[in-house]
C-alpha cells in the first residue's frame, strides 16, 4: 500500500464508522493531536482541542459504543476528503507526510465544514503503515466552536 492509499484507507474507516479498525492503525506509543493554538508546538503546557495518547484514544473509541454516549448517539456522519498528500521527510522506517483535510460533518440537523493541515508520522509495517503521530491543525482551532465528538 502506498502512502496515499493508506491515508484514503484511514479516511474510509472513519467515514464508515469502523472505529476499532481505525484505532488498530495506531502504534502503542502513538499520539493523536488536534492543537488549540496556531503553530502550537507544546502539548504539555498549552491545552489542545484533543491530545490523546493511545490509551485515551482507545477510551474515545470505547465511549462511542456506550448506549448513553449522548453526544455520539448517533455518531455524526462524515466525509473526510484527503488531498495534497506529500512526503516531507523520510528516515529509516519512518515517514512524515503532509496532507490537507476537508471534512463535512452532519448530525442533529447541524452540518459543519472543517478544514485542516494534517501531518502524519507513519511507520512501515508489513507492507503497509502504522500511525505513530497524527496532528490535525484546524483552520478554526482558535474560534468559538460547538462541541467536538468526531475524529478528524
Amino acid at each position, binding site marked *: 500500500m502506498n502512502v496515499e492509499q493508506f491515508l484514503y484507507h484511514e479516511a474510509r474507516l472513519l467515514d464508515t464508522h469502523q472505529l476499532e479498525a481505525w484505532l488498530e492503525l495506531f502504534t502503542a506509543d502513538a499520539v493523536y493531536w488536534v492543537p488549540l493554538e496556531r503553530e502550537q508546538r507544546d502539548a504539555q503546557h498549552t*491545552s489542545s482541542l484533543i491530545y490523546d495518547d493511545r490509551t485515551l484514544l482507545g477510551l474515545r473509541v470505547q*465511549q462511542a459504543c456506550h448506549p448513553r454516549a449522548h453526544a455520539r448517539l448517533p455518531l455524526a456522519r462524515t466525509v473526510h476528503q484527503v488531498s495534497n498528500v506529500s512526503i516531507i521527510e523520510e528516515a529509516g522506517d519512518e515517514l512524515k507526510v503532509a496532507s490537507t483535510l476537508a471534512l463535512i460533518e452532519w448530525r442533529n440537523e447541524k452540518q459543519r465544514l472543517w478544514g485542516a493541515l494534517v501531518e502524519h508520522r507513519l511507520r512501515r509495517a508489513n507492507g503497509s503503515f502504522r500511525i505513530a503521530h497524527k496532528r490535525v491543525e484546524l483552520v478554526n482551532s482558535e474560534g468559538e466552536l460547538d462541541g467536538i465528538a468526531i475524529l478528524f
Partner: protein
Amino acid sequence: MAANEQLAMLVQPDRVHRAVYADAGVFDLEMERIFGRAWLVLGHASQVPKPGDYFTTRMGREPVIVVRKDADAIGVLVNRCAHRGATVCAEGRGHVERFVCPYHGWSYDRSGALRAVPVPGGYDKKKLENISLTPVPRVAVYRGFIFASLAAGGPSLEEFLGPARSSFDDLVDRAPGGELEVAGGVFKHAYNGNWKLVLENHLDGAHPLYVHASSIAAARGAPEPGAPGAEHYFDIAVRQMRQNGAPEALWESIGVWATPRGHGWLGDYHTDKRLTGGEDHPVFKEYKKKLIQKAGQAEAERILAVTRWNTIIYPNCSFMSQFRQLRIIHPLAVDRSVIYTYSFRMKDAPEQMFRDTIAFANVVNGTGSLVLADDLEVYERLQRGLASGTAEWVYLGRGYGRDADEADGTRRGASGTSEVFIRAQLQAWLGYMTQR
C-alpha cells in the same frame, strides 16, 4: 411581558417557567437588566501586565476593551468609535499606544480620550472636545480578578461578592506567594442553548452519573494509573472520569451553598487524592513546602483545609481552585451561548502541577473532551425541550423546604445534590429583572 408583575410570576419557590430560558423578549430584558447591571467577571490582571496591554471581550451585547492604562489602573472601554461606530480595536489581545479607528483614523488614548482626528478643519473644534470612547462606568479588581459593571450605581464589588469572596481567596491563597497567571490557551466552546443552563449545571451533583455515564464507563475499563515516578499522561483524565462516577451517597454527603445574589459553590467530591492534593505524592509535598515557606505552617494548613469544587459568580462566571479553571459565560442569543475557559498557573508551584492543570483542562473543559461534549449535548436537548409550549414549568424541587440559612449569610442545601443553588440563582434573576 415586560411588566414586573408578569416577570414575577415566572419564578416560583420550587419551579420556573420555561419562558425564562426560551423567550427572546425575556433575553432582551436580561441583557439590559442583568448584564447591564451586575458586576461581570472580565478576566485577570495577568492578561494585561504592562501599560498599553489590552484584550477584547463582551459584556452582554457590548463589545469592550480591557486595557491597562498605567501601572495602577485598568480601564474598560466600549469598543465603538464615537464617529461612525466601527470597533476601534480588532478582536483579541495586544499592546497599543493609541486605539485607531480603521474607518477614518480617529485615534484615542488608553483612557479612551479622543487625541487626533484627520481633516479636523471639517469640525467645530468645541464639539470634538468632549468626545471619547465610552468608558464602562465601574471597574474594580478583587485579588487580581477584573470586574466591571455597565451601571453607574449599585452595590460595591465587595458587597456584590459577599461570602463568595472566600472562593476567590481560596483560588489565590493556594498559589505560594499568591501569584497566579492566565496561561495555557483558552477554550471557546459554544452551544445552542440558554446561558443559564451552564450555571445551573456546574454545582449539580446529581448529573454526572447520567450525563457522563459513557466516559465513566470507559475510564473504569482503562489501564490503572501509575504510581509516583511511573505516571502516564492519561492518568489525570482516567482518575477524573472515574471520580465522576462517585456513588450517590458521596454526592449527597458533600455540601452545596448559595448566596442571596445567586452565587454558590459545591464541596469537593474527590476521594482520589492524586487529583486534589494527597500529601504522600512527591509533587504535592514539594508544593506544600513552598506554600509553608510563603504563608507559614498554620496559614498553609488553613488554606489546604478548604475543599471546594466549582463556584458560580452569578451571572457570568464559574471557577474552581483545585485545578485553577475559570469559565466566563457569554450569552449570544436566547438559545446560543459561548463559554471561554481559562487555565491559571501558580507561578511558584512545581511545574508538574501546571502540566496536571493542562491534562485536566483537556479532559474536562476541552471542546473535544470526553466529558464536556456530553454536557453540551444535554444543554442543547434542554433547549429543544424547553421550546415546547405544552408543558410550561421546570421543576426545581430537589431538597426544597430543607435549605438551611447559615450564619455567614449563605444558604446550605439539605444535601450535596440539593437544587438550592438554582433556586438562589433564579431569585437573584428575579431581583435584577424587577428592580426599578
